[in-house]
């Protein structure tokens, strides 16, 4: 792959990634949200693979493959099973409406470009344009966790944060050592399973999966 082609491919993928992040944040149906997350992870896997090939760091291909298998196929599949078995209403309920979250998201993108603009501290090993994208993905994840009512959306927010950190790790350092990277994948997978079980428990006890029904404990 020639450097110019690689650079424009990376530009393109980066843009798509940002669009996918917006898609997760603005979709009004849980199903669409999960599909957007799968797309986001798919793009992440592609970016990882491109970085691995252009910079000749072959060990990065393993995390890329794992991202493809786990985050693009397995985890979304688990989510779809959960929502089918829960039989919940499909709309995403939020404390703030979608146009306003879109506005906040745009602001957050600006903020992430601003805070990472000082490249004296952080000089990434690979394409530096991904640093603000990674930071904004983390921000989006947090926004999602704080504004969404359903427990399942909070889990998606957490996964989005994790995606952002993964992108951060591969662009700044070509990924953590393989042992650590595998451990993180394992943890994420187990976390999704356990949170999935808890979503069912919440449904059984509260007869809904709205996290704002959980107000027993105070003080």
């Amino acid at each position: 792959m020639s450097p110019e082609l690689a650079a424009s491919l990376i530009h393109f993928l980066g843009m798509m990634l940002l669009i996918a992040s917006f898609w997760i944040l603005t979709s009004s149906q849980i199903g669409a949200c999960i599909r957007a997350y799968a797309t986001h992870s798919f793009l992440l896997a592609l970016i990882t693979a491109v970085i691995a090939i252009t910079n000749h760091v072959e060990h990065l291909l393993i995390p890329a493959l794992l991202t493809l298998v786990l985050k693009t196929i397995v985890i979304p599949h688990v989510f779809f099973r959960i929502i089918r078995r829960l039989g919940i209403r499909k709309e995403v309920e939020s404390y703030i409406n979608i146009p306003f979250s879109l506005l906040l998201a745009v602001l957050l993108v600006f903020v992430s470009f601003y805070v990472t603009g000082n490249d004296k501290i952080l000089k990434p090993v690979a394409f530096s344009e991904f640093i603000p994208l990674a930071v904004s993905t983390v921000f989006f994840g947090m926004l999602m966790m704080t504004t969404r009512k359903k427990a399942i959306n909070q889990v998606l927010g957490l996964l989005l944060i994790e995606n952002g950190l993964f992108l951060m790790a591969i662009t700044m350092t070509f990924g953590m050592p393989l042992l650590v990277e595998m451990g993180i994948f394992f943890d994420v997978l187990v976390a999704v399973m356990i949170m999935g079980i808890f979503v069912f428990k919440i449904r059984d006890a509260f007869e809904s999966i709205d996290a704002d029904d959980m107000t027993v404990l105070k003080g």
Partner: protein
Amino acid sequence: MTIERVLLMPLIFAFLCLIPCPKRMTRLTFLTGAVLSAVGAWLFVFGISWSPRVFAFNGNLMMDSLSAVFVLLITSVGVLSAVYAGGYLFKEGDSSISPSRLRRYAFFFHLFLFTMLLTVLSNNLGVMWIAIEGTTLASAFLVNVDDKKSSIEAAWKYLILCSVGIALALFGIILVYYSAIAQAAAGENGLLLDWTFLLSKAKQLDPQVLRLAFIFILVGYGTKAGLAPFHSWLPDAHSQAPAPVSALLSGVLLSCATLGILRFHILTTVATGSAFSGTLLILFGVLSVAVATPFILEQKDYKRLLAYSSVEHMGLVAVGLGFGGVLGIYGALLHIVNHAFTKSLLFFSSGHLLYLFQTKEISKVKGIFRKNPFLGIVFFLGILAIAGMPPFSIFVSEFLILSAGFLAGKFVPCVILLALLALIFVGFLRHTNEMTFGVSEGPPVSERSFLMDGVLGLGLVVIFMMGFYIPGPFQRLLLEAGRVAGGVTV
């Protein structure tokens, strides 16, 4: 014994506990597992206490005197809590828990011990992160044992808040790794996240990146350690978990996360050559004590009272570490140990209280002393100890921490802490006076569990003894650990 075996023991017993068999057998496996893992760990720790560092698994696992202290702590409180659980959760009667649920409980209990041991024994900071996330995942099911609304809510908050916190810590680790990569020579790639390696190269790491990393680590692991203002999961999880689990969460889980912060604190201090991380620790420590104080004064639920007291004590530990110096660090480590034993004793007695009075409300618990004199004595003495009354051990370590502060010339935080500690003392006495000595309704209770009362008695002896006398080998280990925490490179 080797490090691998110390770690394998609880893991093996976790799976053994899953074997479907009668309740008695599960209980036997569960207790044997806890005792054997503890004895194995103790033999290992005291067998090698002369060599400074022991490595295993390609240097990813490491035990120095600092982690040795935590291994002892985890296994000791683990045994106490397992024995207590043997009486508390495995009791027969109409409120008994189904065998399959108990097997799952026993499984996660041992798994929880395993992840905590892995946390303190990992040299690779990434592995440590994985282990800390593992502690959250393993203990979420322990917090929710009864599937009640409130327990599920507590477990959910615990899962979500700690996972987000830990995600931030991961960002800090990425930054540290990034700063190491810039300085790496060829062939060192596998070592770059090893704490020992980073410490030996600390002077060459970019101090600015490390400062940034420490902030993320402090927020991330601080969530897990219960430092204010990231502590909001803590009172919920501690109050809803069954007594033996609360004891483990409060006594050792918080301390394990503190060890995570401490490792980075050592690294940052050596790398930047400044008191940056120490100052932050003092700031968040004092804030934690300050935030906990009003909640302790106005608390209505005795388990939440104990939980907020954990926030306070973790704050004190952070302050001690921040003050630094031999005295401050030794005091903080001793405080971790003392708090672990005292607080687990109190949570165990809260299990008794819940059984006797069937409520967690302070105002509905009256006259423990009349109802069960033994419990009354243990509970009241435990409260005096946790509030910092001499001659109990907590007083000694609080005294050491504050003296370190005065010696370091940090008068403002010390004076604030003294005032807050006095308020907390008053708060504790106000709540527990009526609880212990009030007039009780109903006759005295004679029903006893030998196991559970034994744990309370033993705990009381330990916290009383630690106030006067720390056994020689343990004292040596603590001093050695203080030296490691002081950033002395071996």
